């Protein structure tokens, strides 16, 4: 089962429980098209690319670390970033920080995929501005569905 975790209500600072079903009303909201993935593990990276690309029909660009993600800007600014947290060279948290500092990417939602999903860790991700968390291990065949939902929710939450 893919555990897709939704961000807390930022005004309350509360971290929500794991959500496993698509409950958001996504009709009429923008559809996810282009995704940049950063994952240093080649096996997981291959699974994510297959799941989002061949199975999910998304346009996927894969990077081995956060620095490669930043190097894509401005040639490629996707609809969404999907970042591993633990990566060599530049980890997901630092990558998020830099993406938020760049006006060209600041509005693009960032979702983390990580096995580190203790409450304190989730609080850190959301406090830094993550739009959601995909907990590892995840079900590759439902990954696109969960990303689409988190993307729709992040767009819906915008003022």
């Amino acid at each position, binding site marked *: 089962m893919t555990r897709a975790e939704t961000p807390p209500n930022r005004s309350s600072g509360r971290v929500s429980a794991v959500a496993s079903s698509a409950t958001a009303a996504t009709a009429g909201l923008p559809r996810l098209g282009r995704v940049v993935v950063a994952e*240093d*593990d*080649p*096996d*997981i990276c*291959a*699974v994510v690319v*297959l799941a989002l690309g*061949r*199975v999910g029909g998304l346009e996927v660009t894969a990077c081995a670390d956060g620095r490669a993600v930043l190097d894509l800007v401005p040639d490629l600014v996707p609809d969404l970033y999907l970042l591993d947290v*633990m990566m*060599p*060279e530049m980890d997901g948290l630092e990558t998020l920080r830099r993406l938020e500092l760049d006006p060209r990417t600041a509005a693009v939602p960032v979702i983390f995929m990580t*096995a580190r999903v203790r409450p304190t860790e989730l609080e850190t991700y959301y406090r830094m501005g993550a739009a959601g968390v995909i907990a*590892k*291990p*995840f079900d*590759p*065949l439902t990954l696109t569905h969960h990303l689409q939902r988190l993307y729709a929710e992040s767009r819906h939450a915008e003022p």
Partner: protein
Amino acid sequence: MPSPDPLADLRARFIERSRERVASLRQLIDAAVEDRVRGSPSADMHEADATPAEAITRLAHQLAGAAGTFGYPAMSRAAAALEDRVRAAGQTARPLDPGSLEPLLAALERRVTELGASAC
């Protein structure tokens, strides 16, 4: 004719790569023993790894995450147990005891061997 399981090819590649990773873990643990004697770096370490313990943690972490994603929970748990043991050792002042890792590594090797056999 394409396989009905979209992950079939990736699973096969993962199992093959897992054998290589477990072999690397074995070498790293052996190197950790050597490092305790000689204080020299190991040849199997990634450039981001400062010590054999960091390299073992990284490899075990990757194996745990990927195995779970491919639907091999027993192997994932075995790799996670190894990762947790090395992390726990890192939080103490004591040096890593490679001997304490041996049963965990052996369990992980068994899981990988079983997967390889069932995939044949």
